[in-house]
């Protein structure tokens, strides 16, 4: 690839869950020309449900280490319990020839720091790679999709999220695809940060509710923190048009621009039931609004590319 080949990364985020990130991402995938898709909600991955992916590659993922106490070697001195910062060690393991009870590691609480193993005088603690999940590269009718499944209860979703994004970016570069669409997770924590840092543009999808407004302010603050330009789209805006106006004003005060509004439309759920995107399903009010949204976003991409050195913050 030539040096000037640039992949535009658009991340759909929201703060609050269930605002419509995945439905919007899927429709944008249908409207875009040759996109690559990354489902960065590795914890509850839903984009594949409307993409009917054919998995071409599947890889195991380990998010870190887990400690295990070999009960036969444990002398129940309690050093591990004393040192563990994660409340991950319990005195309810099986007995052995020397002691009637041994210590045990709670695999859900263990963060794999290895301090217990380092200081165990009996060498009774071993560390091994945690089986944290899998990631996949799939083909879809719109282009390649990189997605993942974090095993329930596993930590380090940020690391898996970063992996999904990196793989998607590699594919975009090698296949000469110029747009990477990222379906992000809810919240503002580690997997969101991993989905957001360094993207070209964030689209915050929200809804006209007090929760939607509150969490939008948090995700916009995060975007400012990382100097990422932000656009906002209020979904189901007609549920409360007054609050929608207020949210859009507030978003502008916080340095974002408005990309569009989507009305409540039962076609969104119908499309989901048929494993379709909203814009494939029909040309109802939501589909039309998403097409307008896409046109606004496309214009923003060309602005981003014409000002490559512009600071990301649009304050």
């Amino acid at each position, binding site marked *: 690839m030539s040096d000037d080949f640039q992949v535009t990364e658009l991340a759909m985020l929201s703060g*609050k869950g269930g605002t419509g990130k995945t439905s919007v991402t899927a429709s944008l995938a249908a409207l875009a020309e040759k996109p690559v898709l990354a489902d960065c909600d590795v914890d509850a991955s*839903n984009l594949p449900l409307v993409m009917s992916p054919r998995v071409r590659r599947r890889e195991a993922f380990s998010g870190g280490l887990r400690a295990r106490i070999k009960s036969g070697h444990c002398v129940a001195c309690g050093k591990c319990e004393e040192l563990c910062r994660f*409340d991950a060690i319990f005195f309810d393991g099986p007995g052995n020839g020397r002691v009637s009870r041994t210590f045990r590691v709670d695999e*859900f609480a263990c*963060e794999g720091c290895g301090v217990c193993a380092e200081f165990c005088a009996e060498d009774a603690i071993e560390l091994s790679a945690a089986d944290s999940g899998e990631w996949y590269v799939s083909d879809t009718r719109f282009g390649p999709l990189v997605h993942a499944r974090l095993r329930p209860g596993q930590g380090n979703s940020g690391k898996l999220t970063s992996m999904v994004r990196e793989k998607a970016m590699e594919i975009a570069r090698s296949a000469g695809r110029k747009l990477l669409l990222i379906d992000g997770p809810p919240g503002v924590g580690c997997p969101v940060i991993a989905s957001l840092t360094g993207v070209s543009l964030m689209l915050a999808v929200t809804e006209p509710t007090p929760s939607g407004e509150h969490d939008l302010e948090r995700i916009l603050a995060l975007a400012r*923190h990382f100097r990422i330009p932000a656009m906002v789209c209020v979904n189901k805006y007609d549920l409360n048009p007054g609050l929608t106006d207020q949210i859009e004003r507030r978003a502008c005060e916080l340095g974002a621009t408005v990309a569009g509004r989507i009305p409540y439309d039962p076609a969104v759920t119908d499309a*989901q039931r048929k494993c379709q995107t909203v814009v494939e399903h029909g040309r109802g009010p939501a589909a039309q609004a998403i097409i307008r949204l896409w046109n606004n976003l496309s214009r923003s991409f060309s602005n981003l590319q014409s000002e490559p050195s512009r600071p990301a913050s649009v304050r």
Partner: protein
Amino acid sequence: MKLAVASGKGGTGKTTVATNLAVTLARHGQSVVYADCDVEAPNGHLFLKPEISRETPVSRLVPKVNPERCIHCGACARICRFNAILSLPDRTLVYEELCHSCGGCALVCPTGAITEAPHPIGIVRIGAAGPVQFVSGELNVGEANGTPLVRSVRQSAPTADWTILDAPPGTACLMIETARECDYALLVTEPTPFGLHDLRLALQVARELKLKCGVVVNRATPPMIELKQLCDAAQAPVLAEIPDRMDIAKAYSEGRLAVDALPDMQPIFDRLRARLALMRPANQQSLSSNSKQAAGASGEKISARHSRIGEAATAPPNSAAPAQRSPHER
């Protein structure tokens, strides 16, 4: 009874269920704590509108290197599994955002050059919304790891007949930290393909945590056959159905509790309360008659580690800061 209100998918109505249930329980004369553990996007206060009586900053411990004492041996960087310490020939760098606060570096440092200092991560708020006691955590924007803050929220919740923990969406670390030591998980879902897919994940994690659970269907559109088959197979009873109605969505969008805004919603939550009361562990049945005694009795049945956390929970709320204070610094 400690009840985690959780869901795989976001936006299914956890906060709606948790807040309306908390108010309903209080109306039935029970002592109730609502604890907002969705520290990345806490919303319970928008509906309960509590008066906050105390705000406590929460921090976690991160290493500080004293360059006078550091001999650049690299032991700290070797034990750190999170690449948070870089040991160079002439200096030692700490990346606080990567640190998990395990304390290993300070323990292995042969010259005592590493001490641990608090790094602020968020705030715990304590207050009351009428008869409902209120606790919530808010993670500072830009902080990656909310787990110590969730721990702090849990430990700041006073003892009550009912503790309702409003969990973050998903099935990852924050949800697990919320559900630790809960007696029951109430999983909120919606009858859509996304909702169903994520409910399956939530049921799976509840099973792995050996947590009994029941389901609340929000935006219910009967007959929901597939959803009910899934719940049957997982032995998770559907305890309530909240209908898919515009007036309920409107009340929510106006920041009003459903049980206040709509007269036919209170009976739905009354029935949910009655069915949950039957799910209480046997050793808590007498809790409302003598809270303290019953809580002590149930505390003794679990491990030493649990009972220590139990002490923290009844300690004054300022025990919230710093989060890593827990048992390790005694």
